[in-house]
C-alpha cells in the first residue's frame, strides 16, 4: 500500500460492467511529507473515498481487484483508504 495525492479525474462513460459506478482518478504517489516519489498513475475508486486534492492510500497489481466487493474487476490500482492525517515519529 502506498500514499498518493489525487491530482486528476478520468472521465469515461463506456466502461466494462464490472466498473460501472466506479470513479477513476490520476494519483501522484507521495511520501509522508508530500514529496513526489514516483510517476503518476490511474486508479479506480470502488468505494467512492477520494476527491481531487485528497491524500489516499492505494494498492496496485492483483490486490487492486480485491478492493471491489466481489474481488472481480479489471483494474491495476485501487484507492482503499482516505487519509485524515499522518503522524510520523521520524
Amino acid at each position, binding site marked *: 500500500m502506498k500514499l498518493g495525492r489525487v491530482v486528476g479525474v478520468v*472521465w469515461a462513460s463506456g*466502461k466494462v460492467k464490472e466498473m460501472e459506478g466506479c470513479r477513476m482518478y490520476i494519483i501522484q504517489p507521495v511520501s509522508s511529507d508530500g514529496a513526489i516519489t514516483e510517476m503518476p498513475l490511474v486508479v479506480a475508486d470502488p468505494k467512492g473515498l477520494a476527491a481531487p486534492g485528497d491524500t489516499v492510500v492505494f494498492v496496485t497489481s492483483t490486490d487492486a481487484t480485491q478492493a471491489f466487493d466481489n474481488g472481480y474487476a479489471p483494474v491495476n490500482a485501487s484507492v482503499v483508504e482516505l487519509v485524515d492525517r499522518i503522524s510520523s515519529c521520524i
Partner: protein
Amino acid sequence: MIFARVIGTVVSSQKDPNLNGKKLLLCREVDHEGNPLKTYHVAVDAVQAGEGSFVLLSYGSSARMTDETKNAPIDAVIMAIIDNVQITHQGRSEL
C-alpha cells in the same frame, strides 16, 4: 491502468480456442493528453472501442477479470473509453 490510443486491428485465423470471438486491437501507449509514447500493446476489446479511440488499458492478471476475458490467455484488455482527463492539481507532467 494506462492510457492508450487504438491504432489498428489484429486479425488471426489460427489461435487458442479461448480467444475465439474476441476482438484484438493494436494500441499505442499515450500520456494523459494523448501524446504517443513508445510502447505498443495488443489488447482484447471489452467495450466496443473503435480505431482512434482514447482508451484505458488494464494489463497483467487483472485483464482476465471481465466476463469478456474470463479464462482466456490474455494479459491486456481495453476496459474503458475515455471521454476526458482533467488535471486538477500539480503532479509530474508525464505519466
